[in-house]
């Protein structure tokens, strides 16, 4: 590791745009060195790390025959460790919270709510989405790593609910992000939410691509 010294800050490394094969990924700065701005880290991630990871994964899948061997394993792992990012916007969040209490215990399905979109692969929108918060919802959705799913929980997230024609409410969160499972109810009971999660697991089990 000591051999990989960084001659210039990561800014100039990204701008040099050398061929991907020869350029070494820049190390994170040590204590005392100037920090790399967050935007630069994001740019590096998008330009280098994600394409490299996709290429390596694609090569692995092509080698192994993706639908026969690797894909079922990925699907099995994915559907048994769904980490939801929850949008506690309205009363559905109360039902969401009680689904993780002792009585319904959603964690037995491997569903563990996380606080950061970077750790999540499932977004559960439980509540009334307004236009004011819409672009924040899209931003957090885009920060979640692939593959990712969205559950619209309750009538408000599904279609705007009783506020459908109101001046400030998004008429359904599927106007903003692609939704996989809709859960009806105002609010849905925790059993309904668990049923939605199990149906999503069925979707992931059948995933082919």
């Amino acid at each position: 590791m000591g051999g990989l010294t960084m001659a210039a800050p990561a800014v100039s490394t990204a701008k040099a745009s050398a061929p991907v094969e020869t350029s070494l990924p820049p190390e994170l700065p040590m204590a005392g060195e100037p920090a790399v701005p967050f935007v630069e880290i994001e740019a590096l991630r998008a330009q280098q790390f994600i394409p490299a990871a996709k290429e390596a994964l694609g090569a692995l899948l092509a080698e192994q025959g993706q639908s026969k061997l690797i894909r079922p394993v990925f699907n099995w792992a994915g559907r048994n460790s769904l980490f939801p990012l929850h949008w506690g916007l309205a009363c559905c969040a109360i039902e969401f919270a009680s689904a993780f209490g002792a009585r319904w215990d959603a964690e037995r399905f491997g569903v563990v709510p996380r606080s950061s979109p970077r750790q999540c692969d499932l977004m559960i929108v439980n509540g009334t989405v307004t236009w004011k918060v819409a672009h924040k919802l899209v931003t957090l959705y885009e920060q979640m790593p692939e593959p990712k799913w969205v559950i619209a929980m309750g009538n408000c997230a599904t279609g705007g609910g009783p506020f459908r024609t109101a001046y400030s409410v998004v008429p359904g969160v599927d106007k903003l992000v692609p939704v996989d499972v809709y859960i009806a109810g105002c609010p849905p009971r925790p059993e309904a939410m668990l049923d939605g999660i199990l149906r999503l697991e069925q979707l992931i089990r059948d995933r082919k691509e």
Partner: protein
Amino acid sequence: MEAEELSRALAPALGDRLTAVEPFPGTAGRVRFRPDGALDVFRRIHELGFTHLSTVGGIDWVDHREVFYVAWSDALKQYVFLSTDLPADSPHIESATSVWPSADWHERETWEFVGITFDHHPDLRHLLMPDGYAFHPLLRSFKLHEPEELEVKVRHV
């Protein structure tokens, strides 16, 4: 403090900028004033001890609009109710932020929902609606939209 006492305290300093002072339940009185003398009224009311501005709001009466202020006095333990009428075609009034800094967000909200412009407001922009929102939704002329129609208008602004 009663309405008559309030009237005696206000009338000499304000003159004809004061339209009426009448009893109003639960308050020291309801002060009606001309909109061009608003800042003098605010200052005088503030001098009387009403140092906390509790609410600013607006009403759309179709032929005109009304803007009202509710101020609280800690010494008197009383509210005072101020209101004035504005023309419907260009409703604007001097901002109260130079007298009560807490008027900032209240006036932003009033502008946003009822469309009353506050002159010399330090930062008159949207408070509860997204930036670029094209309507004043509590006006009587505002019609409920079909969801798709509203969505397009909000997104493309």
